C-alpha cells in the first residue's frame, strides 16, 4: 500500500492506495498517522478512495487512528468512493455511527470549517 500525504490549509490528506490489510499496510498507516500527530497536526482526511481491499485489520486500524485522534484532540474525516465496496462495508458495519464519512473531498474539507 502507498500512502501519500498532502496538505490543504491545515488539513492533512492521507491518500491510501492499494490493499489496506493485515501486516505491513496497517503498520504503515499507524506509523504515518502517529508521526503526523507527534508533529502537532490535528486535522486529517483519511482518503480511502484508492484502497483496493479493506480487511478486518484495516478496519481495526482505522478505528484505532480515530481513537488516537480523539485522545489528542484531533479530528479525522474518512473519504470513501461513492457506491464503492468500502462505502458499503462501512455502512453495513454501522461505522458511520463512529466515523465522519464523506464521499466527496470538497465536502470533507468544508466540514473542518468553523
Amino acid at each position: 500500500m502507498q500512502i501519500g500525504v498532502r496538505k490543504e490549509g491545515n488539513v492533512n490528506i492521507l491518500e491510501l492506495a492499494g490493499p489496506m490489510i493485515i501486516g505491513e499496510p496497517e503498520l504503515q498507516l499507524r506509523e504515518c498517522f502517529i508521526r503526523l500527530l507527534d508533529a502537532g497536526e490535528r486535522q486529517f482526511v483519511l482518503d480511502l478512495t484508492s484502497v483496493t481491499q479493506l480487511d478486518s485489520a484495516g478496519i481495526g486500524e482505522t478505528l484505532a487512528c480515530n481513537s488516537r485522534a480523539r485522545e489528542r484532540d484531533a479530528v479525522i474525516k474518512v473519504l470513501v468512493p461513492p457506491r464503492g465496496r468500502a462505502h458499503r462495508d462501512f455502512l453495513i458495519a454501522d461505522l458511520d455511527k463512529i466515523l465522519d464519512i464523506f464521499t466527496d473531498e470538497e465536502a470533507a474539507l468544508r466540514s473542518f470549517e468553523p
Partner: protein
Amino acid sequence: MYKNPLPGHDGTVPAEPPATGVRESAQEHRVEIKADKKNGINILYLAGKMTIGDGDVKLRKAFRDLLEAGERQFLFDMSEVPYLDSAAVGETVACYKRASDQGGVIKVVMPPGGKAHEVFVLTYLDRVFQIFPDEDEALASFAS
C-alpha cells in the same frame, strides 16, 4: 513518543503485568471460544486476550461456521476477555458486518469498567453494538 491507545500488535502496548512478575507463557495468551445455544440464541464465550493471529482468526472461523449453518442471532460473551487489540476490534466489526449482511444480529456481554469495555468505548464500538452487563439481560433483549 505517543503510545497506541489500543492494545496493539506491534509491541507498543501494555499488557497488564502478571501478578507474579513472571512472564506469562504463550499458552496463557491463547483465546478459547466455546459455543452454546440458549433460547435460539447462539452464544460464543470468548476467553483470553484477543490479539492478532489467534483471537481474531478463531473468532472469524467460529462465527463463519455458525453463519453458514444458517444461524442469525448471536451473543458474544466477552466477560473473560481482558483486552483486545486493533485486529480483534476489526474482526468483531467484520463479524457485525457479515451478520448484518445476512439479516443477523450480534449483541455483546461484557462487564462495565473492564479493559475490553474500555476499548469498546474508546473506539466508539459501544455505538454499534448493544452491550449488556450480563447474559440474562442480553438474552432477554432478544425476546423483546
